[in-house]
């Protein structure tokens, strides 16, 4: 099984230097640019490869690039931005890449920059990733010294500058238009779309924001081609994916696997099944803005096209497992408290609705809830549905709630009838100890 993104990452957690990176073929993709691969050709190659954005949305990368104005009349400068905000709870895949192989991101950024004819790139990194920041800073300095950055690429008139921007917290910065405001030094609230960043982005100029893992794929597509890239995957979406798992499983971790691997395989073959003494009840497939999946969904191929919309979506592919020693209501309460705290406060339904949802869930845990509260929770999943709020944060917050109300309905009811949380402190203590 090929693992192009992670095969060279050191298991001991140390990073890879420029010398090591070049020795295993690093930066060789730039020769393709020098020998005549035009920006439009690169866009087509990435489209043919079927690369979909790894930030959670799964948008086709080549298509996204095709909206950027090209040619002599296009506004300048254009910008390419790597989204390394990675604050979606349960998600740690971009960190693995940036810490383990920082030059892969630099090379991916140069290629993406070339594809849209952007002369400047920013890596937007969440403030808590200090080790990634240190290693990326070193990698960028090495790439400048070696002439990959800051010099005209031989055989082309393309010159690329790359900067690291370390942020200072707040989940909303990962939303691409909030990220653009953050980079401009403004309060990080989202912007209205349209216009989309591809035409009016950073400082009003054409801008593409791309997830870190997405960018790591591009050098390999350039080196080995679209057909090879499709063969890596088991389904119609191209490539591999970093799958992760956390919660009460025997062996939490991450693995680069073909797109279309099932949750059952990740859980049973890679994570070694559930931890001793606890049983599986459900999982969020990719961060907390995705809907629960239960036993009946475990054999669905996990990719961007195979999960039926009524079931949910893949998200970041780093799953979080719910076990039988954990109260599903308490679990969802933790998620909604996160969303309420991280709401940027710009639009009323989200700013007011999320704390309300959290309070309602708290009333279940504390034994004060009535069936009216249950219907209020259900109403919120409609009031905060897509289209009712200014950005995707609040609808994302409703995905786990709505699915929990469906799959764990009896547990919500039991909180009402027994006036409290049926999961005793002792039971949760047992879970923590396994």
């Amino acid at each position: 099984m090929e693992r192009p993104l992670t095969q060279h990452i050191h298991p001991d957690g140390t990073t890879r230097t420029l010398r090591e990176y070049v020795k295993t073929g690093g930066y060789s993709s730039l020769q393709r640019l020098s020998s005549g691969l035009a920006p439009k050709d690169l866009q087509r190659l990435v489209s043919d490869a079927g690369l979909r954005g790894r930030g959670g949305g799964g948008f086709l990368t080549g298509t996204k690039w095709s909206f950027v104005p090209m040619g002599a009349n296009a506004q300048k400068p254009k910008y390419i931005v790597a989204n390394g905000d990675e604050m979606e709870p349960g998600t740690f895949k971009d960190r693995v890449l940036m810490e383990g192989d920082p030059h892969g991101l630099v090379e991916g950024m140069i290629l993406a920059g070339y594809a849209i004819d952007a002369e400047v790139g920013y890596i937007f990194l969440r403030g808590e990733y200090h080790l990634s920041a240190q290693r990326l800073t070193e990698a960028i300095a090495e790439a400048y010294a070696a002439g990959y950055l800051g010099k005209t690429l031989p055989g082309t008139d393309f010159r690329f500058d790359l900067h690291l921007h370390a942020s200072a917290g707040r989940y909303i910065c990962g939303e691409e238009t909030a990220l653009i405001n953050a980079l401009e030094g403004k309060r990080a609230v989202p912007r209205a779309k349209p216009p989309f960043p591809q035409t009016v982005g950073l400082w009003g100029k054409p801008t593409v924001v791309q997830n870190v893992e997405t960018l790591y794929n591009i050098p390999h597509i350039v080196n080995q081609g679209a057909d090879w890239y499709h063969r890596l995957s088991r389904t119609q979406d191209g490539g591999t994916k970093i799958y992760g798992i956390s919660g009460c499983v025997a062996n939490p971790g991450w693995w680069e696997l073909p797109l279309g691997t099932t949750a059952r395989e990740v859980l049973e073959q890679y994570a070694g099944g559930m931890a001793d003494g606890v049983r599986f009840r459900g999982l969020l497939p990719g961060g907390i803005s995705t809907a629960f999946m239960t036993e009946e969904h475990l054999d669905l191929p996990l990719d961007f096209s195979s999960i039926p919309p009524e079931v949910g979506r893949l998200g970041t592919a780093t799953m979080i497992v719910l076990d039988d020693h954990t109260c599903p209501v308490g679990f969802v309460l933790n998620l909604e408290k996160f969303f309420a705290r991280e709401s940027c406060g710009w639009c009323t339904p989200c700013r007011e609705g999320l704390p309300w949802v959290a309070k309602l869930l708290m009333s279940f845990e504390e034994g004060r809830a009535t069936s009216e509260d249950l219907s209020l929770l259900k109403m919120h999943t409609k009031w905060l549905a897509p289209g009712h709020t200014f950005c995707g944060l609040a609808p994302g917050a409703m995905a786990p709630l709505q699915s929990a109300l469906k799959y764990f309905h009896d547990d919500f009811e039991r909180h009402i009838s027994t006036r409290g949380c049926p999961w005793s402190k002792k039971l949760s203590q047992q879970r923590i100890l396994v």
Partner: protein
Amino acid sequence: MLSDTERRELEDAVKHYPDKRGATIDALLTIQRRRGWISDDTLLEIAQFLEITVEDVDSVATFYNLIFRKPVGRHVAFVCDSISCWIKGCEQVQEQIKTLYNADLGQTSPDGRLTVLPIACLGHCERAPALMIDQDVYGNVTPEKIEQIVEKYK
């Protein structure tokens, strides 16, 4: 007043952006690294340097959880309270910190050594529960290990 070193660091940061204001976060983080927190006076110095209003700088400073608008202890402990860490007992970790150092979430220990703050998922969920002290991340933390971990931060 900004010291010469601070000024030099800010001048470097500004170079990365076509508009000085882009360096607001860099400026806040850089100065905070030296002074521990962002006072009203600091805010004004940064605003003057970036040639924007104090309100502009404060609207950014108050938005981000890693910018401190109040003094903090000599060290800051960030306890992850997101889902994977919650499943694995972050509440017990936080309780133990409170017992040992007499500081609840949002408080500083009476000896000024440690400020304790909650933080969103630290991206180390496979090693939950996770804890970050200053810039160092610790995984698989148990209440029993806290004292030994914090030992290093005097």
